C-alpha cells in the first residue's frame, strides 16, 4: 500500500509539470472553463452591461420614492425593522442615494465606490425582505412604486441576489473600463 501511494504521487508529479508547460506555452494564461467565465465577467462590455443593469434598476426604483417621500417613509415603517427616529432619515437619504449612485455607476464615475453603495443597499433589502418573509409578515415591497400593493416574495429576493452578484463583480474589477474613471486616470 505504502509503495503504491508513493508511486502514485510520483506518477502525478510529472503530469502536473506537463500541464504547467502547456500553460506557459499558451502565453502564460491558464486554460479552462472558469478562466473563460472570468475573462467574460471582467471584459469591458460585460462590465458595462452589469453597470447598466444595476444602475438602471436603482434609477428606476428611486424616482417614485423621491417624489413621494412620505409614502416611502410609510413603506419603511411597515417593514417594522427600523426604530421610529430613523424612519424619516432613511426615507430622505435612500432614494437620492439610489438615484445618484445609479447615475455615477452607469457613467463610470467612482465606479467601484458607487457599486459598493448599491451593493450595500441591496444587501440591506435582501436582509429586510428575508427577515419579514421568515417571520411571515406580508409587507408592501415599495420597490419601484411606493403606493402599489405589490408584496414582497421569493422572486424579489432572487432579483436582489442577481443585483448583488452584479454589484460584487463590478467591485472586483480593479480597473474599470468604458467610463469616466478610465478617462480621468488617463489624464492624470
Amino acid at each position: 500500500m505504502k509503495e503504491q501511494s508513493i508511486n502514485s504521487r510520483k506518477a502525478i508529479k510529472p503530469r502536473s509539470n506537463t500541464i504547467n508547460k502547456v500553460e506557459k506555452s499558451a502565453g502564460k494564461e491558464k486554460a479552462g472553463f472558469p478562466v473563460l467565465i472570468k475573462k467574460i465577467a471582467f471584459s469591458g462590455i460585460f462590465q458595462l452591461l452589469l453597470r447598466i443593469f444595476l444602475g438602471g434598476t436603482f434609477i428606476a426604483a428611486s424616482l417614485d420614492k423621491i417624489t413621494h417621500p412620505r409614502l416611502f417613509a410609510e413603506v419603511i415603517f411597515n417593514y417594522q425593522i427600523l426604530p421610529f427616529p430613523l424612519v424619516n432619515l432613511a426615507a430622505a437619504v435612500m432614494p437620492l442615494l439610489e438615484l445618484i449612485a445609479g447615475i455615477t455607476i452607469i457613467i463610470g464615475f467612482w465606479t467601484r465606490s458607487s457599486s459598493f453603495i448599491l451593493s450595500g443597499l441591496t444587501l440591506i433589502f435582501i436582509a429586510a425582505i428575508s427577515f419579514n418573509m421568515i417571520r411571515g409578515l406580508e409587507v408592501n415591497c415599495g420597490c419601484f412604486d411606493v403606493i402599489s400593493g405589490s408584496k414582497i416574495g421569493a422572486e424579489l429576493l432572487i432579483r436582489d441576489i442577481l443585483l448583488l452578484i452584479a454589484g460584487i463583480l463590478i467591485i472586483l474589477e480593479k480597473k474599470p473600463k468604458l467610463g469616466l474613471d478610465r478617462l480621468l486616470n488617463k489624464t492624470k
Partner: protein
Amino acid sequence: MEERFGKVFIKAMIMTVIIGSAGIVFNLVYGEGVNTFKIFTPPGELLRSDPRTIHSVEEIKTIWGSGKAIFIDSRPYKDYLKSHISGAFPLPYDQLDEFYPRIIRLLDPGYQIITYCDGAECLSSMHVADYLNRQGFPRVNIFFGGWELWDIKNYPSTGGEAF
C-alpha cells in the same frame, strides 16, 4: 491605476455623506418631503388624531346611505378597478394631476366628501383630504377603517371603471 479597497470604501462613505445631506435638505425644502429631524409618526396614530377622521364604520354607512356625501377612493387606480365602495370616485394619490380634472366637475364645494384608502395603516386618504382642502373643499372627512373595514363588513361594493 489600481484602486485599493480601502480607498473605494472611503470614497463610498464620502458619496453617502454628501448625497445623504443633499437628500435631507431636499426633503426639508420639498413640500411633500419628510422632516428628518422629526420622529416618524405611524399612519394609524396620525389618522386617529386627525380632527377630520370619522372612526365609526356605522356612521360612515349611515352617511353613505343618506346619499349626501361623495366618497373618494385614494388607493392606486388598479385597486379601485378591482373593487371599491359603491358610488365612490377614484382620486389615486399617485395620479392626482391626472384624475383631479376628471372628477372636479362631479364635486361641489358644498358637499361633504369622505376619503378612504386601504385601512388604518395608510395615509393616502389623509394626503388626498389635505389636497382637496387646499383646492377649496372645506367639508372633507377621512374614513379611518378604509376599504379593509368596509370589505369586512360586506357593505355594498362595485368594481370596474368610474367614468
